[in-house]
């Protein structure tokens, strides 16, 4: 099942290029905003699923409306540090993750606004994102961990480089609008192997990133086991699995970005920079080489 949230706050299931409105399945869930509604929806999705499927079977397919992020404001937004081998034969790096501002999320066809901060460059980072469906702590590093997920979606972890104090800037990933997310949450039963997904990202139709989740250093279940050994996961949390840095490039004013994970969906966004800064176009080869050297020395 592919679950979406429309800009007018209807909950839908994708079908035949359109959507069936299943909002009625969730009328008993009290909420104030889409932000606090979706975690509650996702927490109960498994129980409501038979009813939703009936609704979809008997429902009318509507043209797909404009969407917002399927979790417009995750309770937590968690990101993995560089988690791909990227062609190196290094030992696995020490596992590490960090939190980003949950207020950085925007939806499909949203606009990333580059802030007036002196970043050395703004990069796109296409990533597989995990959406948590139940409270979880100390998950095992095997398939049981997947039971804590409701599904998968696409994320672009927009990253301002060269800000902040220490090493790789984390703060540069938390600006408002810096985490486009969506379009749909694809439930785990539709993804037979999360370690065999093809991720691509193009800027103005020029290919940039192109990699497989087979290349992850720490698998999805290892990521879930690791992060849940630190903190309790709650429904609606979004965990981004890291990117393959071979193929990163600059984002700048006017760019149109399209990211696809085969079997998961296509997420589009545009870029606005009130300062109209310019960087070289194309793949950032320096960045790519720097990443391959990590751990090799």
């Amino acid at each position, binding site marked *: 099942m592919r679950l979406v949230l429309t800009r007018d706050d209807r909950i839908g299931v994708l079908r035949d290029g359109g959507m069936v409105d299943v909002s009625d399945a969730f009328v008993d869930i009290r909420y104030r905003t889409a932000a606090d509604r979706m975690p509650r929806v996702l927490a109960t999705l498994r129980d409501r699923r038979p009813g939703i499927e009936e609704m979809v079977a008997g429902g009318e397919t509507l043209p797909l409306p404009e969407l917002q992020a399927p979790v417009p404001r995750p309770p937590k937004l968690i990101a993995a540090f560089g988690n791909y081998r990227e062609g190196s034969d290094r030992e696995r790096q020490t596992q590490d993750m960090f939190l980003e501002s949950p207020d950085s999320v925007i939806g499909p066809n949203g606009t990333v606004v580059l802030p007036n901060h002196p970043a050395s460059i703004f990069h796109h980072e296409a990533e597989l994102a995990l959406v948590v469906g139940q409270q979880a702590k100390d998950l095992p590093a095997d398939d049981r961990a997947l039971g804590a997920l409701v599904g998968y979606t696409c994320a672009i972890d927009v990253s301002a480089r060269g800000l902040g104090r220490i090493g790789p800037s*984390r703060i540069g990933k938390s600006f408002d609008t810096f985490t486009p997310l969506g379009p749909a949450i694809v439930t785990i039963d539709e993804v037979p192997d999360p370690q065999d997904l093809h991720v691509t990202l193009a800027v103005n139709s020029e290919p940039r990133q192109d990699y497989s989740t087979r290349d992850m250093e720490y698998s999805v279940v290892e990521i879930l086991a690791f992060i849940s050994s630190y903190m309790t996961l709650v429904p609606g949390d979004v965990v981004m699995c890291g990117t393959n840095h071979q193929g990163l490039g600059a984002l700048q004013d006017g760019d149109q970005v399209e990211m696809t994970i085969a079997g998961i969906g296509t997420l589009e966004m545009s870029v606005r920079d009130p300062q109209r800064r310019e960087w070289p176009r194309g793949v950032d080869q320096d960045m790519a080489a720097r990443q391959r050297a990590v751990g090799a020395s």
Partner: protein
Amino acid sequence: MRIATFDDTRIGVVANDDTVVDATDLVEQFEPLGPEDLLPDLITHFGDLRPELERRVTAGGGTPLQEVHLRSPLTRPSKIICLMGNYREGTDRPLQILDLFFKSPEKISGPGDTVILPPHQANIFHHEGEIAVVIGREAKDLNAEEAMDAVFGYVAYNDISARGLGRSGINSFLGKSFDTFAAFGPWIVTKDEIPDPQTLSITVDVNGERRQDYSTSDMERPVPELLTYISSVTTLHPGDVICCGTNHQGLGSMQDGDAVVTTVSGVGSFTLHVRDEHERAWQRGIDREAGERVKAAAQHPVAQAPVSGGSA
């Protein structure tokens, strides 16, 4: 005014005679979705609620503090934003570059609660006593003049920190995000009672022994500047918490059985207990090596820049 969360997530005002006057019903009119909404709702509507809160305090009849169970005033903050080292600590260095990180807002500790040390192979678990700012309204791109308008109040905070985990070693930020590692108490003091947040004294005592003891006058960047910077990055919401960083001179280990008292003058004091199933032992007293390391790193900021992890 002192705003407390107590007993089974009730909200109240702590009066000057140290009684707690219940105000939960006043907040319930806003139909909170869960107990985590009570405090943000009170903050959002504080201007309207204040006359009635004051009337109730004047009327008296509250419950003595010792008869209630104070909780963390913030049961589940929408964001916890922490400043990286933001004190001069006796150095004469130039201002460091501003930087911050986000801390997990799950499983917050409050007065009398127990911090659980995880089995992870940390070098040490440190206390970091701090002043934290509680945000009063939605805010983005605050300028220096209006920054303080976005403040609701202040709370004492302990930023418990596991060292040496993850990829960046001593600078591990995930080591600060274990469940129970964010501790707030004993209540929120509204900003009108703290005319100058840069003259507060902060102490941490472990088992009666003084560890941290410093003044917020030593902050590299004062509160308004922190707010201006943070709100240039991310939208702030009522109930978001900004932790202003610690002075590392006086850090020390936390271990099984410890009682840790965090005090901010003019705000209040709260005690944490520590449990470690593995009963690991570290040297007691102040960790002077950690203090010196922070001073040295700040004098030579380049020395701490390379991190083996590359970019995220």
